[in-house]
């Protein structure tokens, strides 16, 4: 299990990838949710860490706004997605000052041919390369995977932790409403959403994976900074 530490004493995010850890995530929700009128706590985790936690919940390259919503669901702290633009720059600056100093960086998804950053879609630098490159089918595949992951989490939380479930309803709704049967009478039907997403994934996942692995092998040839932040679209002719 990986832990991100904030400040000196408080451990905030577990690696949320497996279902077993959701109870810890729920603790951080109750920690961060503004249940009283107290001002923002000094120990609140920085936005980058919240977004990384959101990404782990989604488990696939996702749109900025969705990552921000996932971060909010997971930590109870609001993330304004406009702050992400400046965050992108500061991640690069931080890398340039001390490469690889942090365990994970917020990094853009990368286009499978020229490895240009796909600005609106985020990943974590610690993910393996095939997960970070995006071929023609990948954004759809990743949406379906995120829908599956969040629906699964919601289904678990509804049984085990109503507070966590509340925090995830909205995110789950926004993802599941676009798969057949994902939302019934305004409420997410996790089982149906997972079924529908998986049915579509079965058709395209294999082809997508092959394309991603092929691209990742090429990406591996580039230097580490380009592997993380991509190739500047202006530095080379269109691929």
């Amino acid at each position, binding site marked *: 299990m990986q832990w991100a530490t904030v400040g000196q004493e408080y451990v905030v995010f577990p690696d949320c990838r497996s279902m077993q850890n959701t109870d810890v995530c729920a603790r951080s929700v109750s920690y961060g949710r503004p249940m009283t009128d107290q001002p923002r706590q000094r120990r609140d985790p920085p936005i980058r860490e919240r977004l990384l936690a959101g990404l782990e919940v989604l488990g696939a390259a*996702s*749109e900025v*706004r*969705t990552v921000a919503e996932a971060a909010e669901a997971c930590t109870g702290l609001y993330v304004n997605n406009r702050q992400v633009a400046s965050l992108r720059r500061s991640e690069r600056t931080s890398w340039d000052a001390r490469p690889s100093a942090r365990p994970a960086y917020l990094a853009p998804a990368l*286009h499978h041919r020229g490895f*240009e950053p*796909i*600005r*609106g*879609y985020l990943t974590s630098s610690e993910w393996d390369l095939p997960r970070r490159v995006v071929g*023609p*089918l990948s*954004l*759809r595949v*990743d*949406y379906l995977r*995120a829908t599956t992951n969040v629906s699964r989490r919601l289904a678990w939380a509804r049984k085990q932790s109503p507070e966590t479930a509340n925090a995830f309803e909205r995110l789950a709704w*926004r*993802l599941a*409403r*676009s*798969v*057949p049967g994902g939302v019934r009478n305004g409420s997410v039907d996790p089982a149906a959403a997972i079924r529908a997403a998986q049915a579509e994934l079965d*058709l*395209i996942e294999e*082809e997508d994976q092959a394309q991603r692995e092929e691209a990742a092998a090429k990406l591996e040839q580039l230097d580490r900074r380009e592997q993380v932040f991509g190739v500047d*679209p*202006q530095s080379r002719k*269109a691929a």
Partner: protein
Amino acid sequence: MAGSLDQRLENLRAGFDTVRPNARTIAALRDNPGCASRRVLDAAGIDKAKLAERLGHEGQEGQSRFALQRGDRFEKDVKANAFAVAIDLLRRDGFDLDAVRLLLLRDLYPIDGTGDQDVMLAKRAEETRTAILDMARAKPDSYNLVDGGALEWDFGGAIARLETDGIAWRFKDQIRVVEIKSFPLVDGRADAGKVGATAWQGAVYIAAIQDLLEANGMSTDLVSTELILMLPRNTALVPTMLKVDVLRHVRTLRRLLAGQDSIDELVAKLPAGLDLDLDGLDEEQAKDRIAAVLKAIGTSYAPSCLESCALARYCRARAREAHDPRHLGVEVRGALAGVPTTERAARLAEGSARPRTEEKDTAKLLAGVHRVLVQEGLV
């Protein structure tokens, strides 16, 4: 005049601010096909709003901020999570979309001031071209959805790259253009004016795709002339679809363009050395220079210009000064056929001027109206 047309347009611009033309710019053509200045300025990519500002006639080109915000929100929602909402909507309507292959040029080559916009637009144009041709050839694993494409548009000799709002999508045998708009569809009906304006914009994209296909020896039938609009239903932001056939619009647009002087001919009307280089000029001199350029190329004011051209207020003021009946609208202009100015029309009505042959019919009508007004004690 020496040099290519692009060079001459560049000379005319002489460093003045630029703005990229879009489908709205081109669709405005049908509002007033007779305005040579607008075509030349758009072809040269000159920022008309900035010109209007220098002339002291700040216009209100573009949409209101609130309309843009609402539109932005709706569009973001429909496009969220790799177009999940849009894909769902299309599938429910029976469009066949098994494997969705997305090319998101807006994310790949952002035009937001962070990089060289021309380079980004050129890359988008190249990718759009390849993607559309692959779609048309039904190449396996080609993209079937292109967002933020850039299409080339021939302004009549001057080629411009248009950043499109629309999405090109291939379903089975045809490429379709999809537009996301924020005006509502209430009980199955939408504001006719807004649907009309969107239809014209869609027609520009469709015509540009037809040109691309034709230039590559393919049938223009590969792109459907039925435009798909995604709109909010009723008052909420729940998306719904409306299909509009824009074949008529595409034809009209082509006819308008074909019937006009080429940009080359229009630019040739400019006296040598007359350009928009305003460096070192004071306010008055700058105004005079811009006015001289507009006069040399020629303007043609109509009230509909107010909706689509930043220079409209300036042109209206000039038309009023010149007593040009056009500033009162197409109908008045038509009713005063043969009479050059409103001043002359007034004199013909009072009978204080003798009508020329071409004015006789109109003069009779005017005199009749004047008699009635006198009888009623209104003049």
